[in-house]
């Protein structure tokens, strides 16, 4: 465990409530340890590389960044980016006050990180925040997690949703909490374009281990679209470990479309937990495309805590080589008249393994609820494997609940039909794979995000 538990200096150790949360995280992780093949929740996704002892944790430079910020009256971070530009502020000013969102010219120019559509962008490099804030409309706030801790905005929600005793990596993440953002969309504010969090990893051969913790709060009636993009920028063979936790709170009638693209390097490990708590009439739509990493685990836990809350949790994964891509869900229907649907579809080639563990829990008084779940996989090779574990825990009468699973291969007749028209074998396979994933990718509501996701489905097939 030496690799994952290291004694590094963390920012904010003097804040009692925050430090106590970190200590709870450490204790919970020490108690559970890195999961093994005998850990029920991890029995299909063998943790193999996750307990290696050669991971390197870099201390954050958060302290220095904060200092630079307070010295610069308007918060423009000119010094940080090293552009040397002075005086010209591109911050968002309102009522004679600087609201941050500033970026200097050079950052503005360099900020094209290949984000293919208009979005409010938040960038991390190797798990470290790039201090450039998007110019956000009134009523929307994006600050670093540490600022949110300092001004106590995060106190109400931080750590409240994660059950540390069930999620060892989330416990570890809690122990290291430092990097990440706090996003708040105010009451009845409808964000006009997606918020995009991009993490660029360019870890080279450093075996980096990093933690990101995001807290996302949508107040009642708020609406937003969030995109998480885990993007690899260096040589594909580099190895690192990204450990992500998102805590998401949806107020009454709020709506969040949460999209994620996991496109890590082939030898990387990516473990992510998103925990969502929904109030009445709220809507949470999650879509994730997993296509990178050696071990990739995307875990979604949704608590439908009040009437008429609804969620959809959909995923597509596409993989080959020796990868294991895991989708684990736990949808808790805690109130009457709550609704959930899950569609997971995978395309598995090589010696790869797809894992789907889907749980629907219906609490004793959660009558008139509906929960559906379907997992389908396309196996492209004899050695490809999928392991599916659906679990229904139903403690109420008068509910509708279903689950299903199927796996198959590419249809030889369809392939021949296309080939007999001149379409090459690889192209024909690609067309069929596209068609296979079409219905799940179509769940992405925003047309631009959907087209973007589709382009990544195609890229994976070409690899």
């Amino acid at each position, binding site marked *: 465990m030496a690799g994952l538990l290291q004694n590094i200096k963390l920012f904010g150790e003097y804040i009692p409530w925050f430090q106590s949360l970190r200590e709870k995280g450490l204790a919970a992780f020490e108690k559970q340890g890195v999961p093994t093949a005998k850990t029920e929740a991890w029995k299909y996704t063998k943790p193999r590389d996750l307990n290696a002892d050669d991971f390197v944790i870099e201390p954050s430079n958060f302290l220095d960044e904060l200092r630079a910020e307070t010295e610069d009256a308007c918060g423009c971070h000119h010094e940080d980016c090293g552009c040397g530009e002075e005086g010209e502020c591109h911050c968002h000013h309102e009522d004679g006050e600087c609201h941050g969102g500033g970026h200097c010219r050079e950052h503005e120019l360099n900020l094209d990180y290949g984000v293919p559509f208009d979005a409010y962008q938040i960038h991390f490099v190797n798990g470290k925040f790039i201090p450039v804030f998007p110019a956000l409309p009134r009523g929307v706030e994006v600050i670093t997690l540490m600022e949110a801790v300092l001004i106590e905005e995060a106190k109400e929600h931080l750590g409240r949703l994660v059950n540390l005793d069930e999620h060892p990596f989330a416990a570890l993440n809690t122990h290291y909490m430092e990097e990440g953002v706090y996003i708040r969309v105010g009451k009845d504010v409808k964000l006009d374009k997606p918020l995009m969090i991009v993490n660029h990893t360019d870890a080279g051969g450093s075996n980096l281990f990093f933690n990101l913790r995001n807290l996302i709060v949508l107040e009642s009636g708020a609406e937003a679209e969030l995109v998480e993009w885990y993007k690899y920028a260096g040589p594909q063979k580099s190895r690192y470990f990204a450990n992500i936790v998102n805590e998401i709170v949806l107020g009454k009638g709020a709506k969040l479309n949460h999209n994620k693209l996991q496109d890590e390097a082939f030898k990387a490990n990516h473990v992510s937990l998103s925990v969502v708590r929904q109030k009445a009439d709220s809507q949470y739509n999650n879509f994730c495309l997993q296509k990178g990493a050696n071990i990739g685990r995307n875990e979604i836990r949704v608590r439908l805590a009040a009437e008429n809350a609804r969620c959809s949790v959909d995923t597509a994964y596409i993989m080959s080589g020796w990868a294991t891509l895991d989708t684990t869900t736990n949808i808790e229907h805690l109130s009457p008249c709550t609704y959930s649907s899950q569609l997971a579809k995978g395309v598995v080639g090589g010696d790869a393994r797809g894992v789907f563990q889907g749980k629907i829990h219906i609490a004793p008084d959660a009558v008139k609820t509906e929960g559906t779940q379907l997992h389908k996989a396309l196996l492209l090779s004899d050695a490809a494997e999928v392991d599916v574990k659906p679990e229904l825990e139903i403690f109420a009468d008068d509910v509708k609940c279903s689950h299903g699973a199927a796996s198959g291969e590419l249809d030889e007749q369809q392939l021949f*039909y296309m080939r007999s*028209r001149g379409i090459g*074998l690889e*192209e024909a396979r690609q067309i069929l794979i596209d068609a296979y994933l079409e219905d799940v990718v179509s769940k992405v509501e925003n047309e631009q995000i959907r087209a973007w996701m589709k382009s990544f489905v195609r890229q994976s097939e070409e690899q």
Partner: protein
Amino acid sequence: MTKTPLLEIEDLHAGVCDREIIKGFNLTVNEGEVHAIMGPNGAGKSTLSNIICGKPGYEITSGSIRFKGKDLTAMSPEERAREGIFLCMQYPVEIPGVPTTTFLKHAVNAIRKHQELPELDTMEFVKLVREEGKKLGIDNEMIKRPVNVGFSGGEKKRLETLQMSILKPALSILDEADSGLDIDALKVVADGVNALRDGKRSMLVITHYQRLLNYVVPDFVHVYADGRIVKSGDKSLALELEEKGYAEFVKEK
């Protein structure tokens, strides 16, 4: 005038899983010729067309197939299609989730690429499909639907004919193209096929009944039974078969 051979099959023996279905088949189709192959059910007609097109699962034990002088047996199905062989299938395959336009565009551009022609852009492609589709009574709605999914028998055959019209193959193999068609649909399909007859393109019409041959008139008719050609003649042979049945020829072996 010397004729240029397009398809040459010599002493072909082939089958599936150690079972020989084609037993010494010989046929030469020259440029511009239309050959009909007629035979009873179970004679191996579909096996023959599948082997020419390279469908996986068949084994050639001896003999040769050449197309434009090249050894066809060494080519993948897509290479054969790009060289100019088209199989109009008896049972066109349904491909759920793939819009017909997408499928057609991939096919047209795969073949154009092979011919070193620039790929068609969307506008050019739509124009081509609209023009050819109109002749076959295929509207835009139909080609937006997934390939063959929910198509009636007639619609499926019209889509096969549309593909043939836009891919313009040197050799079209029509495998029971008339099965499941009423007389109006048959005429539409036959018109599409005849439109491709330009004295250079060739056809191999494989059929059980003589009916289609009233509309697509062949230059040669071959009786195919028990894996080989037992008799060849001109179009009058088809009429003779219609009258007498196959019994006599099957006995001749």
